[in-house]
């Protein structure tokens, strides 16, 4: 009962709140079952999987179709949709738009996924250590996290990205660093509630080491929570990448991303509307799918809401 009150006050936006804990297996089976019936989530999941697959196979696809994202033909620029040899037209330099979108997707998704995982990794490590050990460690982490979250994250992001030229790698690093605090907070709360459970106490009784308990027993039991956070933060990070491109601090040419393709296409919104619509729609659809999946997962893992 005491735990229940505490959890309410901690005000988790996602994840379970207060219900009796169930063994992980049953929870997962139930969740999978309920997702299978959630048509919206299933559609979003398949769209996203297709995008990811296409993105991963970008080099193969462009080779198979004999499309080159680099080859220019400036005298044949702004070709419209459905042009022979260029299904999605050509851009301002006469490069094949389809091939560019493929490679851009690879990078945009790559950045978002990698930085979400980085932020999550740091957050899980910090949060679970704080929650597991408690005491002084917990106090320090709490203070540090509170300080960190007091800085307006977006402002800091804009400052750093404007003062240093970002490459895809440094951007992953930066976004990961800025995103960990929220994860750490949720993971800490979750760890505190899990560490008193029977199976953890049982593991402790058998003499398992702290690290073993933490990473084999506690962390796996919050996978549902982590997956939900992940799907939502990847969506947010794709939007952040495109917003940084818009103010000129994002990934720079010649590396294509959906964000910088959309930004530069704003200059040609009358001459080549498809140059603007396609990257814009791809961003929107991808982020939409991610959010829908996050929602669907939450419903699936939260029996009270999903019935």
């Amino acid at each position: 009962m005491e735990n229940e009150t505490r959890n309410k006050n901690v005000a988790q936006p996602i994840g379970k709140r207060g219900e009796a804990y169930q063994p992980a297996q049953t929870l997962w089976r139930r969740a999978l079952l309920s997702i299978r019936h959630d048509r919206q989530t299933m559609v979003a999941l398949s769209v996203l999987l297709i995008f990811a697959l296409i993105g991963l196979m970008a080099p193969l696809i462009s080779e198979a179709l004999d499309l080159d994202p680099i080859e220019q033909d400036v005298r044949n620029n702004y070709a419209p949709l459905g042009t022979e040899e260029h299904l999605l037209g050509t851009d301002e330099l006469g490069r094949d738009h389809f091939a560019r979108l493929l490679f851009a997707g690879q990078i945009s998704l790559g950045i978002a996924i990698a930085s979400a995982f980085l932020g999550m990794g740091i957050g899980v490590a910090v949060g679970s250590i704080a929650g597991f050990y408690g005491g002084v460690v917990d106090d320090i982490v709490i203070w540090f996290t509170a300080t960190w979250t007091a800085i307006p994250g977006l402002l800091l992001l804009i400052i750093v990205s404007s003062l240093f030229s970002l490459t895809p790698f440094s951007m992953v690093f930066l976004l990961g660093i800025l995103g960990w605090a929220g994860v750490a907070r949720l993971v800490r709360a979750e760890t505190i509630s899990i560490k008193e459970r029977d199976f953890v106490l049982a593991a402790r009784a058998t003499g398992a080491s702290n690290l073993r308990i933490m990473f084999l027993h506690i962390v796996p039991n919050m996978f549902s929570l982590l997956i939900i956070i992940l799907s939502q933060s990847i969506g947010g990070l794709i939007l952040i990448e495109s917003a940084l491109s818009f103010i000129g601090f994002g990934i720079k040419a010649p590396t294509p991303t959906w964000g910088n393709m959309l930004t530069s296409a704003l200059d040609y919104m009358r001459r080549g509307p498809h140059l603007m619509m396609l990257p814009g729609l791809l961003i929107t659809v991808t982020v939409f799918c991610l959010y829908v999946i996050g929602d669907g997962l939450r419903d699936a893992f939260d029996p009270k809401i999903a019935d």
Partner: protein
Amino acid sequence: MLSETFCSPAAAYFIEAGDATGMNKYIIRRLLQAIPTLFGITIIVYAIILLAPGNPVTILAFDPTIRQDERERLARSLGVNDPFYLQYLRWLIGDDWMRVDSNYDGRIDERDAWGDNYGILRGDFGASFKFRGSNPLHLIGERLGATIELNLAVLLFGLTNGILIGVLAAVYRGRAFDRFTRVFAVIGDSVPAFWLGLLAIVTFGIILPRFLQDYGIGQGRPLLPMGGRCPPIRGGCPPIFERLHFMLLPTLVSSFGLIAVWSRLVRASMLETLSSDFIQTARSKGLTNRQVWFRHALRNAIIPFAVFLAPTFLGLIGGSVIIERVFTWPGVGLLTFDALVSRDHPMIMASVLIGSFLGLMSWILSDILLALLDPRVRFS
């Protein structure tokens, strides 16, 4: 979503259910804690600024007609070639206790005067590099109103609609309204805001009015202003209710995220509350649906989210630059953007300091709000 990813309620750590030891003590402690936090932020940001490649003088005076000597004079007068600790100290405690190179000859000797900067600790924000001699605080002051005005409008509009939609979606769970609003709000939140903004500007400014004109309606003029905060008339900005149409598009575009997040939070929380015992009790007393939903259920459903006010507001402030840029809203975001591009150190620092201050204050405020709303919460 931004707010969830980047800002999480720190307050939650400090609030524990337990003894009532009083809010005042807690607030004073939080305020005192804010001081070292602010101090730490300034050191970190100042180091980031000075570590960054590039020199403000090169950027400010990138003009071959400016002579070499003048560029050096400028560098000395701005003090940008001094070591890090000296620049930070000067920013922090001023330079009126030491001689500065006031005749810009590259030497500091008795012909030079004492500095005239009092430092941030004595409330002097220094002088902007780009806007020669202007006080950054004054420059921010000119624009802070616009930013707060827009963000409050977004907060108000987004929260009201988010909560309303959340409640109705919970009540009509699974029905058309629920499905439609969930999809619609998420779509709005998934579109890059700058793109949505530009599309909105073009649609209401050009496409729609000209389409109507073709059918003999109107004269093809923009239906809504395509940017700015006030009509271009002399004599100052008219009161807010006379220029609400200027706020409409920026508010709509930047509220989508809020509506999406809050409608989901409220819907989930409402579902839980509606099935709880005290609501059943209320129903059995014969209260109308509306009374049950809005007086009893909603109040309990939104209490846990009071702490989200701070990150929401922070996220809005941080993201201001995008929406201000699209809609030419004369706020602090654009000013900070300009300061970053021109490496105007005192301006950047002033923006960071004020942004972080507002951030810390909004955390404290949302803690207080939470305590006022939820009698179970006490401060330890």
